[in-house]
């Protein structure tokens, strides 16, 4: 029992920050025609290749991080795409403790199983799935990785027109237990996003789309040694605002996310804000 309590305490405090920020990375890096803090249903053309670098700043009470996400995208067909993502923490701070290095890499697939093209627009829906590999250091303080293989499944649908864009996505993340008998709680994520293009720009002109989003997360409790830490469960809802600025095959995407509602027993799980800026290019 003493061993169990020690394990629980160690699990709670060593993962306190991890829950807040690791799950912040659940959103993944977005492709240009996706919500800036979420995922959309669009793929890339057959044999198309895309690269993206996203800078991210997260602030959560006394904890914060600066990170870069590197992403490579490939179109197997015009309706099936795979994405590889590697996060690099430039700085991850938990109180006075700091760590840097690569986190858990992610391999994600997207299958667009429905597409209805109309003049000047499209309705589409995709199934999403991915696996996160335990490549980040899970023994450091603060941790850079979960130490476990984690998976997600989801679906996304949108309407994209010349003026308005509307997205809706739902995902479920299944976390497994690592070698320290710590299992992060599973997470349900949902996103709604609305985009507005004020000017119907022509091809080979800079194109602007303003985005507003709602990003929600519902956390099941974490388990340590099979014991549920009920104070680690909770939910939160974020608002976000961002911009797509694109020119031909280049995209620039700044965005900011702020909490609207957070329901956690422990304050340290609560987020203050996140800021992102991404540059993406397709070939």
């Amino acid at each position, binding site marked *: 029992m003493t061993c169990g309590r020690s394990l629980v305490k160690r699990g709670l405090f060593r993962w306190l920050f991890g829950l807040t920020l690791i799950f912040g990375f659940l959103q993944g890096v977005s492709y240009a025609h996706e919500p800036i803090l979420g995922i959309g249903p669009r793929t890339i053309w057959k044999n198309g290749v895309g690269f993206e670098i996203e800078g991210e700043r997260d602030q959560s009470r006394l904890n914060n991080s600066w990170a870069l996400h590197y992403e490579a995208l490939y179109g197997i067909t015009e309706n099936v795409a795979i994405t590889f993502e590697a996060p690099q923490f430039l700085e991850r701070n938990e109180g006075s403790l700091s760590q840097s290095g690569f986190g858990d890499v992610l391999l994600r697939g997207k299958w667009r199983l429905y597409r209805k093209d109309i003049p000047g627009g499209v309705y589409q829906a995709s199934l999403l799935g991915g696996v996160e590999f335990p490549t980040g250091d899970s023994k450091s303080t603060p941790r850079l990785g979960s130490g476990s293989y984690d998976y997600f499944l989801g679906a996304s649908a949108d309407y994209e027109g010349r003026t308005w864009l509307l997205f809706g996505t739902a995902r479920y993340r299944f976390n497994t237990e690592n070698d320290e008998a710590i299992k992060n709680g599973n997470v349900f994520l949902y996103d709604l996003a609305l985009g507005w293009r004020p000017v119907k720009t022509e091809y080979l002109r800079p194109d602007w789309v303003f985005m507003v989003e709602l990003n929600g997360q519902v956390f099941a409790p974490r388990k340590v040694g099979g014991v549920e830490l009920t104070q680690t469960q909770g939910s939160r809802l974020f608002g976000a605002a961002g911009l797509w600025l*694109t020119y031909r095959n280049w995209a620039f995407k700044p965005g900011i996310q702020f909490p609207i509602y957070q329901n956690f027993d422990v304050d340290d799980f609560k987020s203050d804000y996140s800021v992102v800026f991404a540059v993406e290019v397709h070939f």
Partner: protein
Amino acid sequence: MLRGVIKVMVVMAVVSLIAGSAMAQTKYVIGVDGLSCPFCAYGLEKKLKKVKDIESVTIDLNEGEVVVIAKAGTTIKEEDLRKAVKEAGFTVSSLKVETDTKSQESGL
């Protein structure tokens, strides 16, 4: 001598006619559904430019159409154009073919 001059002129006229028809350019006007934004249209440009004998690709988002000009004296298979649009992630709604004859200065 006059017969010789006439013969030369006839040969040159025939050559000019042949050269003129060889310089005809074919234009394909493709109606494309799903073209909602410039960034996603790039894939369409990329795919079409890989089709053989294409000289130029012009995308008009507001009209929802792409104008493809074939190299002079060549034609493009319509199924190649349709395949390129499909693999770019769009749908062909219409396809019109126009032939535009260019005359070449023959020097006469």
